[in-house]
């Protein structure tokens, strides 16, 4: 009985740990740190340029070097990581970005394939599952995950001097 009680206690502790872990990873990551570009583990890509990221955001670049399709995993407009990413890469706001996409569509150009998920953790989980997916998330959230690959941006990793997504 003592053993069973111990097992139950362990299960309970596990559940608590899981739920707190999930809540922690789903919560907002610390703001103001660098952003990281994460891709699927199987990706052969090691580096991406800011120019390529910009083109992906506007639909001008829709496939990776191995011809697999790019799936952009973004976050809601009010998400700080999303705002910072658009500010740094496109110098625009989420509203401005949406208008930009509308114009792309109206001009008959190809649109990027976009999934919107509500947290860094969910974005990372999606990238883990979908080869070809790419997301720009808070570097702190990405570094804690062993399931995705963090790309160098213009040859630099988050935290290094001159990293463009600071």
């Amino acid at each position, binding site marked *: *009985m003592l*053993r*069973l009680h111990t*097992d139950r206690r362990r299960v309970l502790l596990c559940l608590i*740990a*899981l739920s707190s*872990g*999930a809540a922690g*990873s*789903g919560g907002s990551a610390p703001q103001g740190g660098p952003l990281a570009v994460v891709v699927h583990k199987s990706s052969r890509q090691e580096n991406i*340029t800011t*120019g390529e990221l*910009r083109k992906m955001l506007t639909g*001008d670049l*829709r*496939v990776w070097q191995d011809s*697999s*399709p*790019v*799936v952009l995993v*973004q976050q*809601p*407009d009010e998400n700080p990581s999303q705002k910072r990413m658009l500010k740094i890469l*496109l*110098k*625009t706001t989420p*509203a401005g970005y*949406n*208008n*930009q*996409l*509308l*114009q*792309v*569509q*109206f*001009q*008959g150009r*190809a*649109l990027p*394939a*976009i*999934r*919107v*998920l*509500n*947290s860094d*953790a*969910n974005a*990372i*989980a*999606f990238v*883990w*599952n*979908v*080869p*070809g*997916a790419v997301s720009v998330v808070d570097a702190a959230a990405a570094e804690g*995950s062993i*399931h995705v690959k963090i790309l160098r941006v213009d040859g630099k990793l988050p935290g290094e001097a001159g990293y463009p997504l600071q």
Partner: protein
Amino acid sequence: MTVTTAAERLVLCLLLCAASIGQASAQQTDREMIDELRQRLAASEKRIEALESKLATALALLPTPAAAPVAAPVAVSAAPVPANTPAPPANDPAPHDAMGMGMDNSSGGAHLKLPGGPVVNIRGFFDFNFGIGSYANPLVFPISNNGCGNCGNPVTPPHTTFQAGQFALFMNSQISNKLSFLAEVAYSPDSSNTWGLDVERYQLTYRWNRYLSASAGRMHTSIGYYNTAYHHGTWFSTAQGRPIMYLFEDSGGVLPVHIVGASVTGEVPGTEKLGLHWVAEVGNGRTSGPSTAPVQNFLSDRNYKAVNLAAYIRPDGIPGLQLGGSFYHDRLAPAGLPRVNQNIGSVYAAYVTPDWEFLNEAVLLSNHVQGVRDAYGSPMAYTQISRKFGIYRPYFRYQYVNDNQKDPVNILTGRYYGPSVGLRIDFTQFATFKLQYNRLFQSNQLTGNGLNSQIAFTF
């Protein structure tokens, strides 16, 4: 005493045996329960893995959610989850659709999907105007010569008027991963106060890759920058009205801004940093005479097809910069005249960022009547600059159009030039108010002034 002690010992012994048997039995029950729980846990984990894998696949196949309302589910379906892809662990929340989480769905538009069919995205545009001026709004009111031939344009009747703009419905659909269709239908009034329906664009596009895509249908000709960047939704354009040189054919424009035919375009491999693109188009040019509809949708008045070649660069190093040019050639067959070789060359430099817009274009239209020594040249150009300050965007445009008065083909002739200055106020994300003053110098006519206001929106 001894007997009692022995009996006590025996009882104790029996009790101990019973207790040990009971404990062993209880331990066995615990083990069984634990084993059962383990089995259940393992089964649940397997089930969760399967569900998460299915969910990820389903998410990848779903249309893009509301926060990116215009994004199409084009390539996502081509990104299946391989069988060996690991599922997220239990403490890593599975990705889930953002819909229904209060995300932005305010950009409007409708998505129609018939069971088993492709999704049709529909978006509407409309503008409503008010103009005051000694002349009819020189940039919105259709400029025409009212049949006076080459006399220059007569004075347009003065008016102060409210003016319905274009009610444009834009539709697009991703038919397959590589095949898409778009159409733009505009319902708009003209100077006779009657409404007319025009299918302004319809375009079926097949995209092999970034280096090659082909389209067929009625498109905006790739002459210069403005004609391909802006179409019939005035909400997109900073200023009120198109530059005179890019007026639509049925508003007196002299350039063939629409082409009915086929187009191929793409990026030049190996020039990714420079962003070198090319365009080649062939189709029905504009009609040879003024008496028929200027865009030849169904029947061409000649066998000769118009050809247009364009190229532009978008260098990575200067985001927002686009430099390009084009060359258009056609051979018109006007009634009672020899054939006319029409050549249109254009060059432009455009710098467009979310804050800045600086457009500069020059076009030379040349109509060369066979057997006549000199061609009739009509130079035209404009410059436009604007800067965004929050919701406000002041802008300035100066334009110059000199359509050769002796040109036997052009409908609009004469010289038009002057400045426009205005303010665009984006009072909501999808609606804007524009106030614009135009001063237009016109050959053989009095200088025109116009103060125009416009509300333009998308829905």
